[in-house]
């Protein structure tokens, strides 16, 4: 189907399209369409989401620019505009639109953006993963036990203990939500720190040694945040 797939050249500009047209085999100079035969070109599956949306690999992003680019490309690739084209072109339009939507959804949300970046950087970051602190497990366990007690009190209609438990659990919920906020604030600080590395040239060991702790801390925060969020969800569902 795609004979030109394996002949990727080393183009220096943003490599949106494959270097050779899948249809007429001429060199593709335009970004999304072949200038010889005017066929739409598939976005490379290896393209990372930042490149796909024309953004530098940074964690603080210009959301207006992200949105503008997304709308522009959505119009470019929208399957509606390919209804009268060949099956191959319809397929490409669909594939490009799917990739684009995924890229936009991922980068729009700061948490998903950070998770995605960690995934991209996994080569270096996966070795520095540490388990969450043991006291967090104990805390979650204690909360789950309280929730269990609350559920059983509520099924037996023990009004007094139910009221006390509800007060306690609501206080716990408030403090957990505050901690989530603190974690997010710290996460955004780390975003700036990460981005400041990107302005520096050279991928030497010293830079690596500074980057890794930032990646590691982001990973820890994201993982602990997920944990807190799931217990908060339980709290809301049970006492709310």
């Amino acid at each position, binding site marked *: 189907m795609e004979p030109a797939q394996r002949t990727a050249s080393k183009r220096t500009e943003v490599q949106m399209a494959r270097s050779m047209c899948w249809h007429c085999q001429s060199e593709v100079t335009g970004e999304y369409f072949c200038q010889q035969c005017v066929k739409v070109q598939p976005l490379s599956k290896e393209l990372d989401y930042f490149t796909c949306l024309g953004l530098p690999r940074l964690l603080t992003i210009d959301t207006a620019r992200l949105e503008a680019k997304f709308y522009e490309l959505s119009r470019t690739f929208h399957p509606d505009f390919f209804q009268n084209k060949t099956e191959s072109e319809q397929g490409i339009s669909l594939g490009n639109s799917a990739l684009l939507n995924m890229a936009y959804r991922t980068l729009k949300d700061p948490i998903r953006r950070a998770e995605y970046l960690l995934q991209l950087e996994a080569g270096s970051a996966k070795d520095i993963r540490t388990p*969450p602190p043991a006291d*967090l*497990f104990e805390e*979650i*366990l204690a909360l789950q036990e309280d929730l269990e007690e609350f559920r059983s009190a509520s099924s037996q209609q023990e009004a007094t203990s139910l009221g006390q438990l509800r007060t306690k659990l609501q206080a716990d919920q408030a403090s957990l939500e505050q901690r989530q906020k603190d974690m997010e604030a710290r996460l955004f600080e780390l975003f700036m720190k990460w981005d400041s590395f990107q302005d520096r040239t050279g991928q030497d060991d010293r830079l690596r040694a500074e980057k890794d702790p930032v990646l590691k801390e982001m990973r820890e925060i994201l*993982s*602990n945040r*997920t944990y807190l969020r*799931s*217990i908060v969800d339980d709290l809301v569902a049970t006492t709310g």
Partner: protein
Amino acid sequence: MAYSEKVVDHFNNPRNVGSFKKEDEGVGTGIVGAPECGDVMKLQIKVQGERIVDAKFKTFGCGSAIASSSLATEWMKGKTVEEAGNIKNTDIVHELNLPPVKIHCSVLAEDAIKAALADYKKKAEASTNM
């Protein structure tokens, strides 16, 4: 995806649910969790001599996590501390027929076993040094 019969059995009739007092002599406690799915697992052993005479667990999580820890307590009872250290998550996967997406539950159970054994050893060492 449907749970295997063995998972359903452990889920409906979990063995050895409960807890020991953490401070009691010969008790080792392991608390582990998986942030991705919000699970938390507590596994405790009671050791007399070198043998695990009783084991208890309390797990808040999915059926596979509950079944994995329930099975772990069953297996640990009667074993020596050293033997219990040889229980592998792959044994749990095999016994419970866990699908690939649930393998992490068995890993969690193995982590809990290791944590409980380590806690017991630490306490035992501390008391002999006193």
